[in-house]
């Protein structure tokens, strides 16, 4: 019991989670969630985006959310300097749920409520405040500045909890985390409109000239589309856009509303996509069915169940040419 805070601050488990190995494990877990637990799709995503993008994409969206709470935790565990730096970082990067004037008004209102409390409670607070002030003075003058600042950090952490919880509300909704985990956040969601006029939401994994590799949002399957089949690609917003600013902005606050990204189309999970290939999966020998799919002006789906995937766009193009010749003959 005595050593709980000391043990937490020196925890080997936390050190492992924050180490590259821990972050790698978290990134792998997240990749599998994104790809609906299909290792082939996960590998394809990594090969397109790279490990660094995956790692950063896993960590970055979580940073603004957890930073204020991490700061409070560090302060409570008497890690004063890291706690203050984290709090400062949160003020710079974590978007607030309310505007800056509202945040100030909230603090003022809280202070007003505390001061105009019941008389008995005020007396109790004064009775506690006097010995507390004396002890702080003894700490400052006698026990050293380090001991003094650690006590201040603990009390500040407790005082800040209600304010932080209102400025940076911690999302407790399970759906929020499910969505966050399922979205490959290092890639923007895009509305892909085909030349036939049909549109869907997906993530463009690679755009290498003739072929475009897309991870469809609804069924989490990778498709290859010929560039000529795609009419438009437009970045869209999954869920609700965050329009709030952090507490401290490096550039002057905008006088107009921030630019708004179009919301993504509703997911059509559960029903078959009009672009679902007629052959559910490619056989092991590869090129011919994909070429046939291409001939059919449909997308080329990655061969997930059999564990094989198409080699690359150039090979598919060659196969496509061969089959076209055969069909002509």
């Amino acid at each position, binding site marked *: *019991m*005595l050593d*709980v*805070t000391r043990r937490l601050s020196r925890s080997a488990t936390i050190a492992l989670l924050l180490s590259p190995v821990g972050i790698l494990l978290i990134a792998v877990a997240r990749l599998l969630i994104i790809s609906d637990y299909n290792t082939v799709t996960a590998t394809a995503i990594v090969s397109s985006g790279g490990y660094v993008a995956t790692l950063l994409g896993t960590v970055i969206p979580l940073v603004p959310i957890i930073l204020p709470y991490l700061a409070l935790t560090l302060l*409570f565990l008497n890690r004063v300097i890291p706690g203050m730096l984290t709090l400062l970082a949160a003020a710079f990067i974590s978007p607030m749920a309310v505007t800056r004037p509202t945040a100030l008004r909230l603090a003022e*209102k*809280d202070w007003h*409520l*505390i001061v105009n*409390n019941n008389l008995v*409670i005020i007396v*109790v*607070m004064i009775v*506690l*405040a006097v*010995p*507390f002030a004396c*002890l*702080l003075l*003894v*700490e400052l*003058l*006698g*026990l*050293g500045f380090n*001991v003094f600042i*650690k*006590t*201040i950090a*603990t*009390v500040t*952490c*407790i*005082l800040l*909890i*209600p304010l932080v*919880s*209102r400025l940076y509300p911690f999302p407790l909704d399970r759906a929020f985390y499910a969505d966050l985990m399922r979205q490959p956040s290092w890639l923007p969601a895009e509305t892909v409109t085909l030349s036939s006029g049909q549109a869907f939401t997906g993530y463009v994994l690679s755009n290498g000239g003739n072929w475009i590799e897309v991870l469809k949002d609804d069924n989490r399957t990778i498709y290859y589309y010929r560039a000529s089949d795609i009419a438009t690609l437009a970045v869209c917003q999954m869920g609700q856009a965050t329009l709030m600013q952090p507490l401290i902005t490096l550039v002057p606050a905008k006088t107009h509303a921030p630019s708004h990204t179009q919301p993504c189309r509703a997911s059509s999970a559960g029903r078959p996509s009009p672009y679902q290939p007629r052959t559910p999966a490619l056989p092991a020998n590869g090129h011919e069915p994909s070429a046939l799919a291409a001939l059919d002006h449909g997308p080329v789906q990655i061969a997930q169940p059999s564990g094989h995937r198409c080699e690359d766009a150039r090979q598919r193009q060659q196969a496509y040419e061969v089959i076209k010749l055969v069909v002509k003959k």
Partner: protein
Amino acid sequence: MKPTAARAGPLAIDRYLLPSEVHVVRLRQHPAFLIPPLAGTLGALLAAIAISAIREGNKSPQIIVWILTIFLLIRFVFTAAAWFVQYIVITEERLLLISGLKTRTVKMIPLPKLKEMTFERSLAGRIMKFGSFIIESGGQIQLTLGYIVYSEQLYLEICSTIFPQLAYNEDTERIDESPPVSGES
């Protein structure tokens, strides 16, 4: 060898002494040891009461605040209990630090090792009458015994145990016997 009244201490201490061993000094740390956890707990309690006045919005932050305050309160109670059972014992041969509420720990330092010891008294120590012994070995700090009551007397006691020839030798007598300084030259 010398069954003395000094042995009439708490049983918890006597348990760790050899039959022939006599404890020269036995003491607890200064109550100032409890100031930092007490200040934290009082401050947290004050903050929690103040926050309870905010009756708007979600109640969960207030619950978290009270949970943390109760945690600090329990931690303080445990610290106080641990302080109560912690003893520093000096015998003619060794220094013992007996501590631990749940797991009893007995740290032992042979007195010759205390030759590499630093005695420190902070401002608060001088005001509240406590000091610290920093025991080093090979240039590295082995143990810090903070909040030692009667630290000056204890320091002299340790020195006299380690260097008995300095404590009771002819010099002492010579000083006593030396003629008074005659006038101001």
